């Protein structure tokens, strides 16, 4: 799946988690802009993993700070 198609599906997955209706672009930061607690992060990661049938380990999560980096990682993880 190319980046645009992956980004479109991630946008759908993130919708119900974005409770504060933050405007999201590639530079949006999960910790800084979305202010999710650790449980929300876990549920969101699980939703992404299930959507794309991939694993994003905690080690990889530590490298993902922005929405754009998440899209890139998901593109790569799909191989």
């Amino acid at each position, binding site marked *: 799946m190319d980046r645009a198609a992956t980004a479109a599906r991630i946008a759908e997955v993130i919708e119900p988690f974005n409770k504060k209706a933050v405007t999201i672009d590639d530079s949006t930061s999960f910790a800084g802009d979305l202010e999710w607690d650790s449980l929300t992060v876990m549920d969101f990661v699980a939703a992404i993993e299930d959507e794309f049938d991939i*694993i994003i380990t905690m*080690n990889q999560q530590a490298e993902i700070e922005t929405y754009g980096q998440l899209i890139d990682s998901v593109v790569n993880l799909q191989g």
Partner: protein
Amino acid sequence: MSEGIDEVDRPVMPTGEKGDLFSKFDGLIEQRRALLSAGMEDPFGLVMQRVLSPTVAVCNGRETILLGTYNYMGMTFDPDVIAAGKEALDDFGAGTTGSRVLNGTYAGHKAVEQALKDFYAMDHAMVFATGYQANLGIISTIAGKGDYIVLDIDSHASIWDGCKLGDAEVVPFRHNDIEAMEKRLKRIPEGAGKLVILEGVYSMLGDIAPLTEMIAIAKANGAMVLVDEAHSMGFIGPNGRGVAEDQGVLDQVDFVIGTFSKSVGTVGGFCVSNHPKFEIMRLVCRPYVFTASLPPSVVATAATSIRKLMHGSNKRAHLWENSRTLHKGLREMGFKLGTETPQSAIISVIMPDLERGAAMWEALLHEGLYVNLARPPATPAGMTLLRCSLCAEHTAEQVQTILGMFQCAGAKVGAI
């Protein structure tokens, strides 16, 4: 999850301003200051001036019933245990001043490992200085770079720290969610080493894991299984070997981790296993090698206690009776509890928020009852908990007294 108080179990690096390395703790310092300046007794600064028995101590100047010490089997004051400790102190001295692999292995260390092998009917036993170090050592040594660890999100801090130290790929799943665990196992790349880590009893809510189903799935997917049975040893399972024994799957567990600081009544940690190559761990496990061994008196008390726990069925029955009575009584008063039924010797009372939780904790202390106050971020889902752990030495009358104290304190702070 742990008895940790101010720290989330999963390691998080706080961020702060440059310069003072302590500025990252400012938020916590301020939260504590606010709580204490309101005149509250410090829930994390309690001092036990005298300990009268496994169930009663003088805390902050008051005689207090202990309902938050994990002293499940009340072995801390067992006369045989104390006698063994004194004898070892006289015969072998105060400490070993050495690593297990150098000068720190005494007859007592071999004897306590033999007691563990007999208790669990397993081939190998390895003793660590604490339960924390047992998890840290075993997990970090067996699961290294390129291996995958699949673990419950509510795992104890020592498990998370073991994962981090070993550099394995870490994949958490939602608490006790069998399907989520299976999905993650199936997505691990072909050929990678896999370790599934579970706990028998999760200490925050006192709930148990569906080990039968989870271990079957782990095995079907080629994973090794480690189960932390810290909160079940001595009273869950026909021989007190824990939740895996109770559910009939202990033979499928590759590594059982346990502690001496709960039912055994002293301090120390261990791993038991039937793995044919297990003994090599003594040479490659850094938290085992690079620290001094337990003092002779400690291993002597532990060995005596473990052997007595093998014959503790009457005490076990009484502990379960206490757990059922407290659970039922608190429910009937209208408290919200962590489990629908009493699943362990931990009964967790869920408080609506930190303020009322802290007020209730203090009111109970003034009534003469000590419980654990557990609060976010150490708790699951941001809950504030009053964690009660029962002891086989609590009398039926004490449990009724405890219920009366909850009634009074609950009414005083408007919690029921």
